[in-house]
């Protein structure tokens, strides 16, 4: 039953993702969609941690950064193939997440939030200060475009389909995970760690697992980001970026895998459309966030679900008459 609902939403998503470039033919829109898709990969991972397991990471952008810089340095300075660079970045992020999670997740409550907050700051400072390695605050330039198996993803359209494909895989993995014994364990940990333990769930192991998994998703996004823009700078991976990922997860809806996707799309696209209001941009941005949370406390996904129930109710009732 849960499964059928997932398959329908997945089909809708694939059709929409495949169809977007046909409607939004403008290059500029495509590039926004690419960035939204890349961000969504990270937010879906963060949502597994935050929305399902109830663990807070305040330094998730650092995993984006570690992976983006690792791949950038390896491919640009040492001539690694792009795919190898990205995989190295993913592995490094996973190892770092494991090492942070080991001590932090043993403790209770907010220790992960504090540990990841500190970790995010350390990574940010590291990227800024090791100028010979990372280029420092002015950024790292000349990163090669993504290519794999002899195909260069030069056109934005090709890159868009690459990102959409990876995002689809990430969504499928997340959905399958949530509709399983592991997903129930994560949700159980969210409500009551004690009750979860009593049910025989190894709370520490599941928390560590989902933390590392979310770091891996963030790292995949980081690699795709670096090899799309061909330029990275520390400011994209600081505390503000981590916070924005959390806002995307909350605004999209934390109790759904789709929340991450919709939150990322909405908050990546919205500032671009608000740009025409110039000085009012920040005010409008804040206002929209406040209104969304006031009227859709379950996030955009919760709001959409309510709306669809309302519409189908009305249609159904009319048919009965």
């Amino acid at each position, binding site marked *: 039953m849960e499964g059928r609902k997932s398959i329908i939403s997945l089909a809708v998503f694939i059709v929409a993702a495949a169809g977007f470039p046909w409607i939004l033919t403008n290059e500029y829109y495509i590039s926004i969609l690419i960035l939204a898709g890349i961000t969504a990969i990270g937010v879906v991972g963060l949502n597994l941690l935050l929305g399902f397991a109830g663990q807070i990471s305040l330094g998730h952008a650092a995993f984006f950064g570690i992976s983006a810089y690792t791949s950038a340095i390896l491919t640009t300075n040492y001539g690694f193939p792009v795919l190898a660079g990205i995989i190295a970045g993913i592995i490094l992020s996973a190892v770092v997440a494991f090492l942070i999670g080991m001590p932090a997740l043993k403790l209770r409550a907010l220790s992960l939030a504090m540990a990841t907050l500190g970790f995010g700051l350390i990574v940010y400072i590291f990227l800024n200060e090791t100028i010979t390695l990372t280029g420092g605050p002015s950024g790292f330039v000349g990163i090669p475009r993504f290519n794999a198996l002899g195909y260069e993803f030069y056109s934005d359209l090709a890159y868009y389909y690459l990102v959409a494909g990876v995002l689809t895989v990430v969504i499928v993995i997340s959905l399958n995970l949530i509709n399983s014994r*592991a997903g129930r364990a994560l*949700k159980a940990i969210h*409500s009551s760690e004690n*009750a979860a333990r009593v*049910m025989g*769930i190894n*709370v520490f192991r599941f928390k560590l697992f989902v933390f590392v998994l979310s770091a891996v998703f963030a790292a995949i996004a980081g690699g795709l980001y670096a090899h799309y823009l061909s330029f990275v700078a520390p400011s994209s991976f600081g505390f503000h970026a981590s916070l924005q990922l959390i806002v995307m997860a909350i605004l999209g809806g934390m109790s759904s895998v789709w929340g991450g996707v919709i939150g990322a799309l909405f908050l990546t696209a919205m500032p671009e459309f608000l740009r025409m209001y110039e000085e009012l941009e920040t005010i409008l941005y804040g206002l929209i966030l406040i209104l969304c949370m006031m009227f859709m406390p379950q996030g955009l996904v919760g709001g959409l679900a309510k709306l669809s129930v309302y519409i189908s109710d009305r249609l159904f009732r009319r048919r009965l008459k």
Partner: protein
Amino acid sequence: MNNNACLLKCTDIYVRFGGVMALSGVNFQAAKGSISALIGPNGAGKTTLLNVITGMIPHSDGSIEFNSRDLSKVATHIRSQEGMVRTFQNLEVFSHMSVLENVMTGAHNRYKYSVLDSIFKTPRYFARERECRQAALEKLKFVGLENEWNLPALDLPYGKQRLLELARAICGQPELILLDEPAAGLNPRETRTLGEVISAVRQDLGITVVLVEHDMELVMSISDEITVLNFGQVIATGTPGDIQNNPEVIKAYLGSED
């Protein structure tokens, strides 16, 4: 009590919270297939003993044997895998799940498959999930919640949430279930139903029950053996008949005349 039939054996348990001795030298046993009650005035240490038995708080001295295996230093989830499950005085229903999912979570280790099985949706995933779902539905029927399986867990009224916790606890087919004040907050009718379900848990499922409870009518009607705690010490052990007439117990509950 002969030793072979003893499922749970707590010997000389000491627990200290700062300057307070919460438990001092408590001995407690539960025979296989019995319903053993643990009673005593508020603050006597009943819930503390339950927490020690399930490994949620450490004890400074003493041993806990389960199925003749020493579990004193083992983590809570391992004790659960060994077959020891509890419910909570303050309900700890999994709020982010439906009623059915709550109960399925109770069988976490009974229908096992790996994370990769779930990601790739292997035949093993489907088979285990179907079995797990079936078992959970059976247990819901057992406690009388079969019509509510699809509701969000928090939409259930209080009394039914208690039954839900019970269904969740028995879904993993434990050997021992520890109930912490299951009748708290229930009306007399709900309490009677609960008593019948608890008896059936022992009778039909063969699960040994340890019951912490204040409702004396319930305790006296279903228990085989009663242990009375007061100020962290056992003051009496015996059948319901013995306990009712024990002067020590009456004194602990009502106070003495002088």
